[in-house]
């Protein structure tokens, strides 16, 4: 088992490395360089050369890549072009806002979608299942900002129950925090609910229709033992994967939600960076999101291997 986990960890590390190459490469292939972007149209050749020298841009791309990667590993995320502040400082002050939003949304949507998915699976083909299927089909196709704006219109503008701005300070009370965060968390949960529910449903149906469960039922095992000992270990691994996969939907959801509700979070920083073409900032933010995503997928795989005996042995 440990060998398989180690191999999987190695693969994860390789994916991370590949992600860093993709990010660095994507921001490198543009015509012109960062120095040109800083100086803009009114540049002179001398100023350009001087700035390139200062920023080390005249070294080959490979050297700069390893320089950047080395910096990342030591926690040096570079300096923002737009604000001239260290990127690490800018990210640090905003990290918590995004993390809180994502964690709260996950805490609500994961149990809810597992319950709904299970319910749907147990009534497969029935009225509940069909209604939920139609609803999810529509929900998957609705843009996140539409949900956000409708919620905002109803609960913040018309009813004035909740706040449309999620900008909270450490001093605000628990109730004020709830008022501020309820709408963004609800929007984000809504965005991932449909996918997670469907995946839970299909993985549960998959397992309960498999021959070995039928066999176990036919030989007269008590239902408790059937579920806990036979079905659950196999059901857990797809569920871990489902949860991890949805964090990718959450990444795109968070970007929209932070914009709709004006949350000063990490994705807002990334979008601002993209607008201002602040390359070091984009690279750092993308690398953070990418690593979180890859690490969560890795965690899901490792947990699956530990939960499911069948995955412990290579085929």
């Amino acid at each position, binding site marked *: 088992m440990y060998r398989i986990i180690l191999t999987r960890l190695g693969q994860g590390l390789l994916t991370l490395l590949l992600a860093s190459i993709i990010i660095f490469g*994507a921001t490198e*292939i543009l015509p012109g360089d960062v120095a040109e972007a800083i100086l803009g149209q009114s540049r002179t050749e001398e100023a350009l050369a001087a700035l390139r020298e200062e920023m080390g841009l005249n070294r080959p791309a490979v050297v700069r890549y390893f320089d950047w990667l080395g910096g990342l590993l030591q926690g040096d995320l570079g300096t923002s072009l737009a604000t001239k502040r260290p990127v690490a400082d800018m990210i640090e002050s905003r990290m918590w806002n995004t993390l809180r939003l994502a964690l709260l949304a996950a805490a609500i949507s994961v149990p809810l979608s597992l319950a709904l998915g299970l319910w749907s699976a147990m009534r497969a083909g029935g009225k509940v299942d069909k209604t939920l299927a139609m609803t999810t089909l529509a929900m998957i196709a609705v843009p996140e*900002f539409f949900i956000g*704006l409708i919620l905002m219109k109803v609960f913040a503008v018309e009813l004035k129950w909740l706040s449309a701005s999620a900008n909270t300070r450490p001093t605000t009370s628990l109730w004020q925090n709830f008022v501020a965060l309820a709408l963004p968390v609800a929007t984000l949960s809504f965005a991932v609910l449909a996918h997670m529910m469907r995946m839970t449903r299909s993985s549960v149906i998959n397992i309960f229709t498999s021959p070995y469960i039928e066999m176990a039922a036919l030989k007269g095992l008590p239902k408790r033992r059937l579920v806990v000992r036979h079905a659950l270990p196999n059901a857990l691994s797809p569920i871990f994967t489902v949860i991890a996969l949805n964090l990718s939907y959450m990444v795109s959801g968070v970007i929209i939600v932070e914009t709709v509700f004006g949350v000063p979070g990490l994705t807002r920083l990334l979008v601002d960076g993209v607008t201002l073409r602040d390359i070091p900032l984009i690279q750092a933010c993308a690398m953070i999101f990418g690593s979180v995503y890859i690490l969560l997928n890795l965690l899901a795989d490792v947990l699956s291997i530990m939960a499911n005996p069948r995955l412990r042995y290579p085929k």
Partner: protein
Amino acid sequence: MSDAAEFTKPRASVFAGLRLTWTAVIAGGVLLFWLALALFGPWLAPHGEAEIISGTTFAPLGEGGFLGTDKLGRDVLSRLIYGVRTTLLLALITTVISFGIGVTLGFAAAILKGWFDIVVSRIVEAFMAFPSTLLALVVIGAFGTSITVLVLTVGLVLSTSVFRVSRALGYDIGVMDFVEAARARGEGTWWILTREILPNSMAPLIAEFGLRFTFSILFLSGLSFLGLGVQEPAADWGLMVQENVGGLFLGSSAALIPAACIASLTVSMNLLVDWFQQRQQGETVLEKIDQ
């Protein structure tokens, strides 16, 4: 299809043969409506795309224009009508690009197999190990916002999943008896691809096209909503939402209307693909998404 009875049936049963459900009829109607508006919009719009018609900004419904005015006093209805063209056309172009790349590479990987398949599959896996929105943001950040960059980026990002689908289809169909028979007859690779594999993978590819089209509308309007997609003064539904969000607190629905239009478009598209999928394979589109 080969059933002789099919041909002797009266003409009236053309619609019965489609096995339309009421959701499919409604969804199809909505899509046809938007399509017609995209084609004939410029002759129907009461005002120009970026024409300022009123001094009042965020005028409510019925004032200034039929649907009110936006943040600059432009007619919401006219921008909505011009916007459907941008929204549908850009989504169509990106989907076609993603299919051009995805299907070509996918079938090539399935037929050539060997090192080509391994290399392309690994590259696609590397890209898929990364949230697609993030990938698009990084590229747009590097190249700046322009329609060309937008369309190419989103098309490329979406092509990864098209590649996976068409590669799987190519592999599945490539081992079937009729393909074996064609090979034994001595037909060339090109003949097998265009006469055997492609016709037989048409239905799943059409369903995939519908799904990718929906996704690309969502993706593009999301980017426009962030201010990174279509730029003013052009009218695009996602952009219209972004422009007029501020009006929400002034009682204006200039942001909600285009958002609702996008939702009507994407939900209808999904329902129609679902109907097509059920008719073809007897499985719902959700099972396709679940995979």
